[in-house]
């Protein structure tokens, strides 16, 4: 199960942000996406997750294999931690959520309404959702935001276990997770601005 991308160009709000991007992510490997703010990391991850079509280029191996976690965790504040997790588990056709609760130390919180959790605890709940999807490729956008040192370790462990069983992970992050991960710096792939005479050429 290799996620491979060839000559990908992606757009945000109709404007190209990245172009000519090619890489392959084989099973058992992690890849860290780097680049300055606004370069299009989130757009890249959303395109890979299938939330928007690419402008050009091919993506293969992303059909029903990707578990996406964005900036928002998709948590319902009035449901308990357990109800939130069980919902996502059954959407993905799984039942067992104990492994996910254990991995992020959510056992004690499992009967609390998710709305009463702290930001870091919510993030942990959001990340534990990945474990109930059963999907091989994790595509994560800034997963460690608002996590403390301990929780970052939990996350690194979870990714490590996932890689060990043949999963893969594509992570946009700026902190060092202590993982053996390939680095993908997208800065050189910034899309060139369209030539100016395209803009009002027809009117002149």
């Amino acid at each position, binding site marked *: 199960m290799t996620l491979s991308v060839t000559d990908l160009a992606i757009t945000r709000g109709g404007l190209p942000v990245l172009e000519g991007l090619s890489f392959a992510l084989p099973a058992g490997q992690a890849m860290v996406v780097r680049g300055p703010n606004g370069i299009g990391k989130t757009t890249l991850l*959303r395109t890979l997750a299938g939330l928007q079509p690419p402008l050009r280029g091919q993506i293969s191996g992303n059909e029903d294999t990707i578990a996406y976690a964005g900036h*928002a965790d998709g948590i319902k504040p009035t449901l308990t931690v357990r109800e939130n997790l069980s919902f996502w588990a059954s959407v993905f056709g799984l039942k067992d959520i104990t492994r996910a609760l254990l991995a992020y130390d959510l056992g004690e919180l499992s009967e609390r309404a998710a709305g009463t959790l702290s930001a870091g605890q919510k993030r942990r709940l959001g990340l534990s959702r990945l474990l109930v999807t059963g999907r091989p490729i994790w595509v994560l956008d800034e997963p460690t935001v608002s996590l403390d040192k301990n929780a970052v370790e939990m996350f690194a462990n979870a990714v490590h276990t996932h890689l060990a069983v043949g999963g893969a992970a594509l992570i946009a992050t700026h902190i060092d997770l202590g993982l053996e991960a390939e680095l993908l710096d997208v800065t050189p792939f910034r899309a060139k601005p369209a030539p100016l005479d395209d803009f009002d050429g027809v009117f002149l």
Partner: protein
Amino acid sequence: MIALLLRDLKLAFRAGGGFGLGLAFFLIVTVLVPLSVGPQTSLLALISPGILWLGALLANLLSLDRLLALDWEDGSLDLLATAPLPLEVALGIKAFAHWLTTGLPLVLAAPVLGVLLNLPTAGVSWVVISLLLGTPALSVIGTFGAALTVGLKRGGLLLSLLVLPLYVPTLIFGAEVSRRGAVGMDVTTPLLMLAGITAAAVALLPYASAAVLRVNLR
């Protein structure tokens, strides 16, 4: 599928879920109309089927705002779109959950609140039947409108403007069934039209909703 339905129902019944909002609005309309129109029972009996339908329609409209907006705000919609459940099915389920929490209570309340409007006895069953047939269409059309405006800040006004014209056929034929039923006329034609509109809306609109939602999620 069932999980999504159960979650939406649970959310609706928990604190701040919005269940009862439409029902309360319906109650207010039916209580205030006799007060503003005056106590002429013959006039009330004449207009009651139409008022009940209008009240149900506006009550429905009131709850559309929250149908997809909450899921969009907390990111669930992105996650649902990447889940194995087809978006068409997910939106169909969400429309069904909306009907169960908004449309069905209105149908059940209509005969009781009809008493306030001096609804003729012969009309009660036709009001219930027409609402039962027509409210599912209101929910799926509303889901389509919500999918069109999801992501817009304060999209409620635009949503109402987009959805109201689409509600008109359902209102015309639904109210016509009730009106004819109340005066003992034959209801076959408007009833079939109403059923046809609902069947077409339920069959086609989830696809349209999913298509516009995919565009809006980009």
